[in-house]
């Protein structure tokens, strides 16, 4: 359908006045802007991070390498519900569920194996959103490298070690309901992180 005449907006170039027409004021003000940046950088306010020596602090919602969270008892939090692997658009999560050990009273199943193909993952964070017990989270680790494809298949132990490392380093605090296991609709625990920042779908 052609555009109706009423919707056509006609615009005219604004007229320059004599001062602007000389161009020199614009050139000078442009040079001042350039100079301002020059001085600012020379004063030590550059934005560059000297990467291998200096590491940037990523925003807390950065989506990097995954981790599997542990509960207070050090057990894997995951209840092997397959919601993350179902939500995953890249089909990179492979879970084998098994009946939970008898002394794990709070759940019926646990993941016997839990493998994420970090090369296939698109780091969309939908696994994190889908997880009902906040067991899988994306960390701010961004420099993931490896020498082989096999090395990049992260199994349960590796994912748990990522949790240990990032929590110990303090870069990625656990973003869950006060660290308690529970269903996704569980209200935030007093003193815990408010639900809006937990990264879960309520």
């Amino acid at each position, binding site marked *: 359908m*052609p555009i109706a005449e*009423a919707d056509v907006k006609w*615009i005219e170039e604004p007229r320059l006045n004599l001062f602007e027409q000389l161009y020199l004021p614009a050139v000078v003000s442009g*040079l001042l802007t350039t100079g301002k940046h*020059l001085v600012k950088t020379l004063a030590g306010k550059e934005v560059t991070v000297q990467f291998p020596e200096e590491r940037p602090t990523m925003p807390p919602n950065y989506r990097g390498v995954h981790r599997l969270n542990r509960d207070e008892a050090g057990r894997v939090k995951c209840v092997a519900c397959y919601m993350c692997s179902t939500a995953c658009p890249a089909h990179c999560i492979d879970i084998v569920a098994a009946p939970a050990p008898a002394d794990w009273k709070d759940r019926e199943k646990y993941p016997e194996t839990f493998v994420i193909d970090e090369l296939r993952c698109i780091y969309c964070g939908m696994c994190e959103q889908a997880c009902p017990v906040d067991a899988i989270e994306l960390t701010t680790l961004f420099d993931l490298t490896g020498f082989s494809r096999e090395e990049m298949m992260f199994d349960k132990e590796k994912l748990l070690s990522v949790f240990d490392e990032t929590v110990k380093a303090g870069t990625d605090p656990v973003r869950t309901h006060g660290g308690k296991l529970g269903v996704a609709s569980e209200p935030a625990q007093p003193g815990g992180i408010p639900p809006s920042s937990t990264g879960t779908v309520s």
Partner: protein
Amino acid sequence: MNYELHPWWTLLTIAAAFGALQGTCAYLILLERKTAAWVQDRIGPNRVGPLGLLQPIADGIKFLLKEDIIPDHVDRVFFLLAPAVAVGTALLAFAVVPFGPTTTPPQTAWPQTTAEESSSYTPQFQEQVEQYNRTYEAVLAPHVDIGMVFNFAVSSLAVYGIILGGWSSNNKYSLMGSLRSSAQIISYEIPMGMSVLGVVILSGSLNLERIIGHQLAHGWNFFSQPLACLLFLTSIFAECNRLPFDLPEAEQELVGGYHTEYSAMKFALFFLGEYTHMITTSFLLMILFFGGWQFPWLATAESAWVVKLLVFAAKMFVMILLFMLVRWTIPRFRFDQLMGLAWKVLIPLALANLLAVMVVRHLADTNGWSNGVQAGILFGVSVLLLLLTGALTLLQPRNRRPLNLAGPTRVPAETAAR
């Protein structure tokens, strides 16, 4: 400092100046990269040596050791000649430009006839000339009376390096770059030459040492010739192929421009030529309009040799810094815009300025105006001319067709209703 005009002295000066020039060029490239980084809130090269200060040396080694590719499809003779022309002309142009303290050549009263001229060569004057010939001048080729003409003639040959390079590369992008360069040279050379004529009329000589000497006695030419200074400044940006006039190497449009097919040392020679050109024109601007090595209270005629040299170098450096800042401030002109600017604005302005200088100089001579009055009037005339140009541009009939932001075609009302 006394010296006989001895070939060894000249050779030594050439060796020193050439070495300094090469070193300065190398470090200017580092400065350019650093400035670019600072202006963009970055740090810039800092890995080679402390603060990246060894970067130019690493670059030089890389340029020398890299594989020197000559593609099969090029015209070998001109392909090899082009970088040599580019760097050779740039270095030749530097030959007559003072880079340090100079003395004013002795001058008699302006001789009007041959009889007057011969009678003015008194023994006293001969003695002055002898004295002058024994004085060391910080120029590779001192005492060149047509210094400015030589400089302009040779430095405009530099464009042949670009044209040959683009043509012999047998590559459409390179050719386009060099064609733009030729479009550029016929635009900026004329206002450049004409803007300088005013200075020549005021100081009565093409000898660069004498132009410096004139400013020593009468104050910087900038104050009487601000418009000419502006025109010259604009033109040297085009002359050096620097943004906003770096049309021959518009990376975004022309791959690499005229030097797309060049690699290793041949590419480096183009770079060397460009930076030498920048240094030469910066010195030239300072000589013509800002008194060369002089600076009020800091470097006067009585100052030490080293002070003059350093002040001159510092002034040149300020100009180079302006080159670099402008590069990150003003976007590139299209070549039709450059030609429009040069032919419709710069050339008429330069002509008007030249006329104004001639008239004011004549009036000053006949009415006996003091130098200050003359400079003041010329300054006023410059400002007036600039404002007049702005006003005339405003009065130009504009393309009245409004811009349509909603779509490419305008739909008649009756079809739109259906």
